[in-house]
Each structure stands twice: as C-alpha cells, then as structure tokens.
C-alpha cells in the first residue's frame, strides 16, 4: 500500500513554561484510502501531533513525508502551498469566514490555488455542496447557518482541492449525536466511495471504533497502532 502521510521519529518539546517532552518518537504511516483515527486522553499530545502533521507547526524534530516527499524543513511559502493543495482541514469549531457566503467559503482555497478557472471552481464547489446535501445553503451568509450545517460546509471546503488527505481535529466534538453521526457517515462515504485518506483526532470512542484503524496515544507515545 502506498503511504500518503508518514511520520518518522517525530519529537516535540514545549519550552514554556518548563521544558516538556510532548511527543516521543512518533512513527507511523497513513496509507492511501485509509480512514484512521487518533485516540487518547486530553493532554496526551494528539492535537499537537495533528498540527505537526498538518504542516502548520514546524517546531519539531524528526521527519514528515507527504506523498513520499519530505516536508520537514521546507519554506513557509512552500508549506502553505502544500497545505492548500494536499491537505483538507476540519476543526472542532467550524471556522468559516462569517462575512462570506457558504459558496465563497468553499471556493476560497481553490481560488488561492488558482489551477482552474473561476467557473470551474464554482461548479466544483456546488458539486461538493451537493454531495453533502447543503447545496441549498450556497448563497447564505456563513454566520446564518446552524452548527451541523457549518461543519458540513467546512468539510466541503476541505474537499474543494481534492486533497490527498483530510485531517480532522475533533470534528464532531461540538456536535450533538445526530450531527456527529451525520459527519461520520459523510467521512465514511468519502473514504469508501472516493478512496479518500482521512486522519481524525477524537476522543469519541463510538466514532473511533467505526473507523478503519485506531491509533491509540498516551503520554506522547503511540501505544497501539492498529486494531
């Protein structure tokens, strides 16, 4: 199986307020088409790991490979480009640009990438919204829709550039069980039907159990890599 994301001996320290070894020799792979979840107690470093994997946090030791390409040590400009093209992100809080319409929110990363024309971007964005059954909200302001809808818009935005992997930081943490189910089903569907790779940090055990693979973390170490 081909690896989408690979971490080799990643170590991270928090220097303030006291030196603290957060992540200890983290090495694992996410294969293409895999739906993996990272579980662990609060403070075990799972979010910290995710932000390193997302290339946003560059302050670590070790190596990170995305599509078998070394990411560690690249310039910030290059990292922004990689994030834009290869990584889709879904957060616990919905983080939409509240003054823009739903459609504009979804289109923004593609506009930044600017590989296809504006009309194609708009078409693609509508397609993604349709897949998530929220195409009727396209023209609404992002601040005027419900929490569950917001999360689906965020997923549509994560999908817009057809990324290699989608990362989620507690994407269901702020949703009720109905919406949680909904989001899980969307992820599952994307994984099954479109062969998308997903890596989701969660402490929702029900959610994790239904994924292909659970990476269990504790005290900055991976306890168990497979299920």
């Amino acid at each position, binding site marked *: 199986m081909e690896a989408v994301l690979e971490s080799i001996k990643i170590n991270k320290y928090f220097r303030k307020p006291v030196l603290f070894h957060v992540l200890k020799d983290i090495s694992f792979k996410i294969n293409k088409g895999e739906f993996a979840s990272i579980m662990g107690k609060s403070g075990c470093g799972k*979010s910290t790991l995710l*932000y390193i994997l*997302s290339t*946003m*946090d560059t302050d670590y030791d070790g190596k990170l490979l995305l599509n078998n390409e070394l990411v560690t040590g690249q310039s*910030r*400009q290059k990292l*922004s*480009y990689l*994030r*834009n*093209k290869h990584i889709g*992100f879904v*957060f*616990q*809080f919905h*983080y*939409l*640009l*509240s*003054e*823009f319409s739903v459609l504009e929110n979804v289109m*923004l*990363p593609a*506009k*930044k*990438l*600017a590989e296809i024309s504006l009309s194609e971007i708009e078409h693609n964005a509508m397609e993604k919204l349709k897949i998530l059954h929220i195409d009727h909200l396209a023209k609404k302001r992002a601040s005027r829709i419900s929490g569950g809808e917001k999360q689906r818009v965020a997923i549509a*935005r994560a999908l817009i*550039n057809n990324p290699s992997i989608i990362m989620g*930081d507690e994407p269901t943490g702020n949703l009720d069980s109905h919406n949680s189910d909904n989001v899980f089903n969307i992820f599952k569907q994307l994984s099954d039907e479109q062969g998308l790779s997903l890596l989701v940090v969660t402490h929702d055990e029900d959610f994790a159990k239904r994924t292909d693979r659970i990476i269990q973390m504790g005290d900055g170490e991976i306890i168990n890599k497979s299920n």
Partner: protein
Amino acid sequence: MINWKVILNIAKTHLLSKIKQTATAALGVTFGIGAYITLVCFMTGLNGMLDDLILNQTPHIHIYNEIEPSKKQPVSLYKEFENSFNIIHSIKPKLTQKKIHNALPIIHHLNKDDNVQGAIPQIKATIFYISGSIEIGGYLTGIKPLDEAKLFNMQDYIVKGSPEALHNTDNGILLGIEIAKKMALDVGDRVQISTITGEVFPLKIVGLYQSGIADIDAIQSFANLKTVQRILGEAENYVTDINVKLYNINKALPLSKKIEQQFNIKAIDINTANAQFETGTTIRNLITYAVSITLLIVAGFGIYNILNMLIYEKMNDIAILKATGFSGIDVQLIFMSQAMIIGIVGGLLGLLIGLGLASFIGTIPFQTEALPTVGTYPINLNPWFFVIGITFALISTFFAGYLPSRKAKKIDPVKIIRGQ
C-alpha cells in the same frame, strides 16, 4: 505566487462588512488631506499675495546715482602720506548729478541681456501740489506707463483710470489717492504742481493711484516720462532711475554687482533691499507644512488603530486562511490592501473636499485698504499640492497598515485554533 483577485476580494468583504469602521478610518484620512489642501492652498495664496505685494512693485534691480562720500579721499592719492595713518574729519558727500550718466545706452544694453525681462527708465522729482495757497510736498515720478503696467503690474494699483489713459494724455497725472482726498479732487479735475524752482504746471488727473501704504499715497504721483522731463526743463536723456525686471530673481545679486562694476553706478538687488520678506515667506511655509503633516499623522494613527482592532477581531479568519493554504504574505497583503484602499478612497475624497473648501474660501469677500485690487481671499490651487496630498495619504496609510499587517502575517494559526 500572489493571487491579487482573491486577496482584494477578501479585503473588500472585510471593509464592506465593517462599513462604519471603514468609513471612520477613511474619514480620518479625508479630513487630514482635506485640511491639508485647504490650508496649503489658502496659506500659499496669502503668501503669494504678500510676496507679490513686494515683488510686483519692486524692481529686481534698481539702478540710481547714490549720494555718498567718495571712497577714496584726496589724501590717499597724495604720495607723501602713502605710508602714514590719515584721519579725515567731517567728510562731505561728493557732488554728483542726479541723472544717470548715459542712461539710454545702459537701458539699451540691459534690454539685450538674456536674463532681463525689461529695463525701464524713471525720473524722480520732488514737487509741491498746490491747492489755493496751500502747498503740499510730494514726489512726481516720470514713468513709461505701458511698460510699468507690463513689468510691474502698475494697473493693480490704479483704482480709477488706467495706464493707457496716462500714456495717451500728454499732461496727465496719476494722483495718489490720499492727496486726491485731501484736495477733494477726482479723475477729470486739474491739479497744479510746482517744482522746487517755483515753476507751476497744471496737470489733468487721469487716474488715482493707491499703493496700499497711506503714507506713500499721500505724496506719490505719476506722470509720463516726457512730461516730467519738460516740467524739470531737462533733456530727453535725463533719467534718474532704471528699474530692471529679470526672468529669474536669483540672478539679481550677481547681475547687480556686474552693473555696478561695469557702469560705475549704484545697483541694488531686491533681496538686499527686502531681506526680511524672504524670511517671512519661509516661516509661513514652515508653519503651513508643520500643521498639515501633524493632521496627516493623526489620520495615520486613526488607520493604525482601526486596522489593529480589525486584526484582533479577525484572528479566527486569519488562522483559517492560513490553515487552508494562504501564506503569511497573503494575509499581510489582505490587510495592507485594506489600509491602501482606505488611504486611496479617503485621500481622493480629501482632495475633493480640499478643492471644494479652498474654492469656497476663494469666493469669500476680502476687502482691505492695503490691497485695492484684491476682492476675495487669495487661493493658490497648485496641482502639486494635490499630488503631495495624495502621496502623503498613501505613504501614511502604508505605514499605518504595514505595522498591524506584519502582526497578522506572524500570527501562528495553531495557537489560535488550539486556543478555542
């Protein structure tokens, strides 16, 4: 790679969604620039008027025969006393003629000089105005009215009549307005003048002269050059003063020195004669610019403040933009372009408001005895002020935007996202 369309679109949305804040920031610039334009147009207009008051009337170089003692006294020519220390008491000025020797060739020579706009002769004569048995002392200056009008804006100081009327009337006189008041005379009346030697001439009043300085208006009158020559009983080459106007006022000093050497005559340049006026202009300009720059800096701080607040409000947006692939520079450009849009819109509005206010001031009546031909406040609508105004608006908004936007560039998205 910078995608300006996306960046400007985000900037536009930010600005429009906070239209009140945007308007406040833009209005800060508008008032700053508007006040600058108004102030600078008004002040330089006044400056220009005050300068003209002196510059237009005053010749750049004034050539005349000075009455002064000889620099070389006879004793210094005497060989026997060559190496001794001579003290001479009560030196008297040298007896010289009032007229300029070879005046007409000098005028001819000066008019051929490339730096000279014109050199015109004058005759200054001391006379008495006679009203019944009363004699009032005064000066009659013989001029070439049309040349005076052309070079020294004589017409601006003629409140009734015209230089042409004087030119066309052989025995005409342009009477100082205070004298006319004293003697209850008006245009069309006749006035008798007498020379120092006692000869009396009747002259026809063709106009009234008002310099704005009452003391001068109470003694000074003008007549044609030839008329004065006839009154004094002098020949046609009798000229006591030559007034020179140059194209470039800065050449006045070297040229006056050259004339003094060449013709052995007194030549005074305008800067030596009116040293204080240059200082006044400089200081007024300094005040104008100090006030204007203060206004613009205050406007700049307004923008800085508002952008700073905007960036705090938009922390989440910045984090999300960065997480979805916008680089730090993209984010910085988003906020920079907001500042620049505020600067451009505010600045242009400011130019318009400044233009409107300055034009309005230019219509307010402003009448003063000192300036007979000025009817409204003087305004100097120099296009350069507008160029400077908009440039300063852009520069100040650039810096006001640069500092907060650099902060936005450096924001770590992980901290914001995890901080929730």
